[in-house]
């Protein structure tokens, strides 16, 4: 990991700090009477706030997780160099695409 990856990792972490706290609070609040699709979608559909919230969440999580998994692979698997970089980019893109799809599904 060099200084660029470090910064991307820590900045995405700092961005997610308040997001995760809110996410946990929502989980604790929402599950009390069971989850249901109507309730979730009522809250999120057409909401600019939740759109930005989850959008930012997905982008930060994709960056953060890709770099984190890369660091683990560097130390715990034989992978090095290009393999690591491509693997991390691919994983990040996967999260980004699936995440964008999920956000659009619940917000749009």
């Amino acid at each position, binding site marked *: *990991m*060099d*200084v*660029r*990856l*470090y*910064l991307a990792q*820590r900045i995405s972490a700092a961005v997610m700090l308040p997001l995760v706290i809110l996410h946990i609070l929502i989980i604790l609040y929402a599950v009390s009477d069971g989850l249901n699709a109507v309730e979730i979608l009522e809250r999120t559909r057409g909401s600019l706030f939740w759109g930005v919230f989850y959008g930012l969440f997905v982008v930060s999580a994709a960056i953060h997780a890709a770099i984190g998994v890369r660091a683990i692979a*560097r*130390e715990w698997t034989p992978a090095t160099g290009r393999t690591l970089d491509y693997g991390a980019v691919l994983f990040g893109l996967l999260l980004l695409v699936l995440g964008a799809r999920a956000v659009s599904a619940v917000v749009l």
Partner: protein
Amino acid sequence: MSQSQQHLTVSVWRGKSEGAFQDYQVPHLENQTVLDIVTWIQRYLDPTLSYRFACRVGMCGSCAMTVNGTPRWTCRTHVSKVARDGRLKIGPLSNLPVIKDLAADMTAFFEKWQRAEARFTPTKTRLDPIEQIPPSSPARLAASAAIECINCGVCYAACDTVRWNADYLGPAALNRAWTLVNDVRDGGQDVRLRAISANGGCHNCHSHQSCQVLCPQNLNPTASIAGLKRLTAAAFIRGGLK
């Protein structure tokens, strides 16, 4: 030797990376360091045993070994503190190749000091007046807190990031770099910041503090490395790492 003489069973690593532990019976004295034990074995039981020491008083940093699984400076480690049930297991420092028996090959360790630019780059000659550095200036205080390293390699052997990533510069080299970063007389700052920001640099540290827990000089490489992370990140943002 008196009748009541107690004995220790000491398993000592013999060989290179391939090898085995061999047991020795060594008299247990009241005031005895691990280095005394090794020396006793070499003097009285097996002169072919290889190990390294110089000062015997915790200054030179050459006597570090793995004692009962933990890297320690053996000349200042009392047997009574580390022996368990009259047994001791002594091996070479880990994370380094073995030259023979208890002597680890420190080459990679010191090469990383060079790679980290952990050496002083003078900006003055002997003809210039000596630079006055206020002892209470923040930079001097930061350097002082990290300066007493004896290059023993204990932290390096205790660092799992070194173990799992051969490129990682390791706690000692980075700690030394931190003291130089805080030395206003040093002229090698840009090169140094670039060196420790590259692959294998300070950003690989996971802050386990295993290095700090075991450093015989009570230094805190984790804190030094955190300082380097801050400094390099700021330099990168300013565009100063090109």
